[in-house]
Structures are given as structure tokens and as C-alpha cells.
């Protein structure tokens, strides 16, 4: 229930003003007509008891809580009734007009109202095509390297985090889980490079549950730091399919439109081998909506040309990008390409970065 709080002083002033006006009117009219004043008083009483309120009266001025609540409920019901009437009327008009009816109005959603981002990538842009063609992922996209992922956690992981890592290792082909043992990441990285790993994935744990992800592309690639939320392990997913097979999945990247989104999308794409095995019928989806990236892992089967059945396998989680750093993991001296600054970037509800 939305109760608009009007500060007390204004309330009293309002009261006085509103009381003065009808009193003046009544005084003026009493001058003309004695009976008129009595009638007006009766009208006032009638006005208060009826659900239809005159514009100068507001529900918040009633001091008695129960009566105020009743009045507000009546007010809401009245509003609802009017809205339904309006809808019915419009429907009737539409049916009456038939084909000539004006098109239905599209409701406003935050995605509809999104502020135009000037960094949105134009597919024909040569400069960006060159930039992407020669960036750190070019070795993967040109087919020169195969992905090899090292998954580890923060020190001394517990419970859900270890199970999450194991399940992630089944989703990503050629992934190896290693126990952290308190080793420094800056020392692990040269060893990984020597052993031909292309990705280092570190899952941060807080209170026995995963809450952060650091994804570092290895030769000298960007490091992305994500916040992980809403993790559902395999046994918590309802109506799931059997365990995933060893086939490489297909990858779907939805809605990564801006330049930053492109970089993050390529970061995810390079985790999986370039040639998916369609025999396995498994698909990994990274869906970006409102700067949150939703990860899902499904198995699909085409029943006929138009119908598909899907089964959700595997873990499900949500990611939000917190920073993208150029170069391998170096949080102290590394240069950041993008950092989430909440007070500046989250101020507008309709502006998104990815």
C-alpha cells in the first residue's frame, strides 16, 4: 500500500486552506441564502462517506488508522474498477472497428527503454573488425590453439564449491580441477602457460558457497572478474536429464552488443572447442540481459521439424561482470579496461554496459 507521507506542517496549512475555501464559499452563500449553508454542510458529510472523493481531499488526512485503511482500500478498488472499465471499452472499440483498429500499444519495458549505447558494435565496422581480429583471442579464433582450462578455487574450499567445480569440469571439455593449496596466482600463471593451458578459472568461495569467478585468458589475455550468484547444483535442478556426455557442446551467446560485451562474449566462446559435436546434442547458453549473464546447460532433441524438447543438465548460475583487466591477473599493478563503478554506472536504470 503506497501511503504518501505529507509532512505535518504542510498538512496543517493544507487543512487550513482547504477549510477556509469551503467556509468562505459557505459564508458567501449564507449571505445570499440561509438554507444554502445547511445544505453545503450536509453535502460535506455526504462527500466524506461516499467513495467518490472531491479533488481537494486526500486519504492521508484521516487520523484514525482503521478508517484511513478502509478509505484507502475503497480508493484502490475504485481505481481498479475504472481501469477495468477502460480496458473493456477499448476491447469493445477494437472489436467494433475490426481491421481498422489502431495497433496495440507496446508496453514499456526496461529493455525497450534502454539508453542507446554509442559503443554498440556495427558489424561492418572495419576498425573494430581489425581490433578483434588481432586481439588476444585471435589465436583461438584462427584455430591455432585448443582450449585447456584449469579450474581452481580460493584456499580451503568447502562443500558446494568443490561440487560446483567438479560439475563445471564436466561441462567444459578438457578442464582440470586442481586443489589450490594456498598458492599465489601470479606464480601459478607462468606454470600454466608452460603447460599450454589457455584459461585459468578461479572460483571464489564465501561461507561455503561460490560467489566470485576470476577468468584469466592465459598467454597474456584479459582477466575478467565476475560476481556469481544463484548457483544451482545438479541435484537441485528439477526435471533434469542424465549426466552430460563427453561431447563438446554448442555455445550460444545472446545479447552481447556493445564493445565490452563483444570482449566478454569472446572470452566465453574461447572456453569451448571450436568444432562442437552435434551428435552429443548438448548446448551451453550464456544469455546477457540487463548486464546479468545467465549460464545454462541443456540437452535438446528435435521431435519433428518444429518441436524441440530440452532437458536441463548441469549447473546453473548467474554472473555479473565487475572488472575487466588487460593482461594476466595482477590486481595491484594491472591496468583495468573496465571497472564497475556502481554510483556512476548504476545511477540510470535504463543504461547497460554489456
Amino acid at each position: 500500500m503506497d501511503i504518501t507521507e505529507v509532512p505535518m506542517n504542510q498538512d496543517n496549512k493544507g487543512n487550513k486552506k482547504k477549510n477556509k475555501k469551503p467556509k468562505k464559499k459557505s459564508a458567501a452563500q449564507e449571505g445570499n441564502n440561509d438554507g444554502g449553508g445547511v445544505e453545503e454542510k450536509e453535502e460535506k458529510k455526504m462527500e466524506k462517506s461516499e467513495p467518490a472523493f472531491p479533488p481537494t481531499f486526500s486519504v492521508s488526512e484521516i487520523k484514525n488508522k482503521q478508517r484511513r485503511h478502509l478509505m484507502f482500500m475503497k480508493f484502490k478498488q475504485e481505481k481498479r474498477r475504472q481501469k477495468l472499465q477502460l480496458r473493456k471499452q477499448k476491447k469493445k472499440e477494437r472489436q467494433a472497428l475490426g481491421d481498422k483498429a489502431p495497433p496495440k500499444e507496446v508496453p514499456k519495458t526496461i529493455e525497450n527503454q534502454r539508453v542507446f549505447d554509442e559503443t554498440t558494435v556495427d558489424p561492418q565496422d572495419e576498425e573494430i573488425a581489425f581490433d578483434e581480429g588481432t586481439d588476444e583471442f585471435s589465436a583461438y579464433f584462427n584455430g591455432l590453439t585448443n582450449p585447456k582450462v584449469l579450474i581452481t578455487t580460493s584456499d580451503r574450499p568447502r562443500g558446494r564449491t568443490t561440487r560446483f567445480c567438479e560439475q563445471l569440469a564436466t561441462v567444459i571439455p578438457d578442464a582440470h580441477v586442481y586443489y589450490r593449496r594456498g598458492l599465489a596466482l601470479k606464480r601459478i600463471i607462468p606454470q600454466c602457460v608452460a603447460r599450454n593451458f589457455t584459461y585459468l578459472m578461479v572460483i571464489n568461495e564465501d561461507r561455503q558457497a561460490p560467489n566470485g569467478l576470476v577468468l584469466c585468458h592465459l598467454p597474456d589475455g584479459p582477466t575478467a572478474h565476475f560476481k556469481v550468484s544463484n548457483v544451482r547444483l545438479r541435484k537441485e535442478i528439477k526435471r533434469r536429464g542424465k549426466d552430460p556426455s563427453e561431447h563438446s557442446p554448442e555455445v550460444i551467446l545472446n545479447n552481447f552488443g556493445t564493445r565490452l560485451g563483444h570482449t566478454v562474449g569472446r572470452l566465453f566462446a574461447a572456453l569451448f572447442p571450436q568444432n562442437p559435436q552435434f551428435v552429443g546434442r548438448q548446448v551451453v547458453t550464456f544469455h546477457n540481459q540487463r548486464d546479468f549473464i545467465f549460464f545454462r546447460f541443456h540437452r535438446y532433441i528435435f521431435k519433428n521439424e518444429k518441436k524441440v524438447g530440452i532437458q536441463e543438465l548441469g549447473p546453473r548460475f548467474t554472473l555479473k561482470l565487475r572488472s575487466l583487466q588487460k593482461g594476466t591477473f595482477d590486481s595491484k599493478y594491472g591496468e583495468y579496461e573496465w571497472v564497475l563503478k556502481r554510483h556512476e554506472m548504476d545511477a540510470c536504470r535504463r543504461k547497460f554496459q554489456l
Partner: protein
Amino acid sequence: MGDQSRLCSVWLGSETGILKGVSLGRKQAFNFCNTSHLSRDQEVRALCWLDEAESELLVGSVDGTVKTFSTEKGAFTDARSCGDPAEGCFCGLAALGGSAIITCAESGALRVWREDSREPVTELHAGTHVCRMRQSPVHAHKVATGGKENGLKVWDLQRPEEPLFAAKNLRDDWLDLRRPHWVKDMAFIPGSDKLVTCTAHHQVHVFDPSTPQRRPVLEAEYGEYPLTALALPAGGGSVVVGNTQGQVAVLDLRKGLVRGVLKGLAGGVRGLQCHPSLPLVASCGLDRFLRIHGLEDRRLQHKVYLKSRLNCLLLGSRAEEGGEEAAGAEQEVKEEEDEVWDAMEKVEEKVEEEEKVETKRKTTEEEETQKNKKKKKKK
């Protein structure tokens, strides 16, 4: 191409090798590229003006070539190879007298090149891991260098054996441990002998070579991340620094306190420069935007998206041409209005009573104009 380049007031070098010119008045950005085929070897690392008149630019690339770009013609006129890429990329570029170029590579090789010869005229070794080299605006032969574990050194090019001034590291800390030292950028303070440096340990130091003290005269700290760029505003007494997280702050040089923060950058700052006469700061960085803030109100005035990561920038003194034109137009309009009022006064009334009437008329007209202005302001 020549018309486009003449309009540009801000020049930037990008990682893809493209020299970008931005015209703020027209809000347009132009790409100037040497070869039709782009390559990462051409990544621009250093930019500087060749002469005072700002008609030619020097562009230093990763593969060791220094190209000359003419703003009048809008094309690259000259290219010369000044050093191997094996020595590291350029960390500083400066012009000496119009025909000679000073270059400094990351390995510490500071060289002066003349137009005719292929070999450097003078060569200095400024230590290892040099991060930045800057030329003094007053004495063209004085140059400062600094880098990782390589303190600030001021060199005179006419005496290349020893530096004029070599800074000492800070005193050991309270655990008697040696303080790490990483100079990222420096600037000569105009009007005196002093220098300001910013370090990757989020410190800002002011050195005074005229005093016997080799340690910093002033120490200030800002933030928790390495400071990568520095600029001195024309007003003096303050310095603008930027760090790897995109935080740009204006620090006061008298006490070392933060005067204010310029908001908007999302990525590491790579280039910062203040305009020589107007209170403006231009910043560019890894988030692929050029931003211009006003120094007095610290508000963002212009923001331009340039599609590649930007490495360095140069401001021309002819910046804000659009603003000047608008101001000129306003003044013309005001003059016209005054002329209209003057014309009206003279046209009315007779000679004898004119003075009294005119004064009365003037006051009433002035009051009217004042009233109109007040009304307009209220509206």
C-alpha cells in the same frame, strides 16, 4: 584530408596504429592512417608537436619508426627508423629545435637524431626500464627520465655523461625496509626549477633540483592503485593525476590534498593533458573514450567514442574553436542591440530639450532593458 586535419583540435594515438583527430566544435572524429593495411606493429606509443606553430606532429610506433604528420596537408610526410623494437617501445618523444628529434626507449637508450644522418648524434643511457621521458618546456635541451626502480634523473643533452639531478629514493620505512620505487610519469613545473612525478605506488612527489635535497620536497598519496598519467593545469599550484582504475583527481601542490575528482572514466588512464590557456583537461584511456572535463566545475564537457584503445593524446592550442565562435557571435548580437538602442535615442526629439529628454529616455530604456533581462532570467 587537409580540411579535416585543420579542424582537429585533439590528436590521439591508438593501439591499432591509427592516428585520430577530433574536432570538438563539430563533434567529429577522423582517422588518419599511414598504410591501407593496418597492423599492430604500428601501435602508436608517443605523440608530440614538432614545432611551436603546431603544424606538424611526430608519431612514434612500436616498431621503432617515427613518422611526421602534417596537420595542414592531412597526411604523413616523413618516416624514419629510430631504434629497434627489441629495445622496447618509445616511452618519450620530443623535438629539439625543429630539425632534431629526441627519442627514449624502454631499455633506457636516449638518443638525439638529426634529419640527415641515420645514426644518432648523441646517445645516453638512462638506466633500465624507463617508463617516461619528458622535455622541459623552457630549456629544450633539458630532459627528465624515470622508470621502475629507476629514479627521476634530469639530463642536459649537451653533457651526456652525468645527469644534472638524480633523485634519491625515499627513506626506509618504519620497518627499515627499502621503499619500492616506480616512477610512471613526470612534468616540469613552469616558472621554477621543480618537477612533479607520479609513481605506481600511488604517490606524487615534487622535487626541487635547486636545493641540495635530493629527496622529494613534497610527498602526497592518492588512492590505492598505480598512477599512470599526470598533467599540469595552466593555473599552477595543482596537478591532475589518473590511475589504472579510471580515477582522475586534481591534487593541490601546496599541501598534497585532493581538491576534487573528475568522474566518468571506466578504464585505466593512459593520457592526460591540460589545455595551455583554457581550464580544460583531456583524458584518454583503455575504455576507448576521449573525455574533456572543465577544471573549475569538474564537469564532463565532451565525450567521444573512438573505437580502439587509446595510448596517448595531444591537445592543440586551437581547441574549443566552436566555443570561441559562439562567444563571438553573442558579442556581435549584443553590439547590434546596442546599436539599435543608440539609433532609437538619436532619432527622437528636439535639440534643447533633447538632453533632459534623452537622459530620461535613456534611464527609462535602460530600466526597460533591465526589466526585460530580469524577466527573461526568471522565465
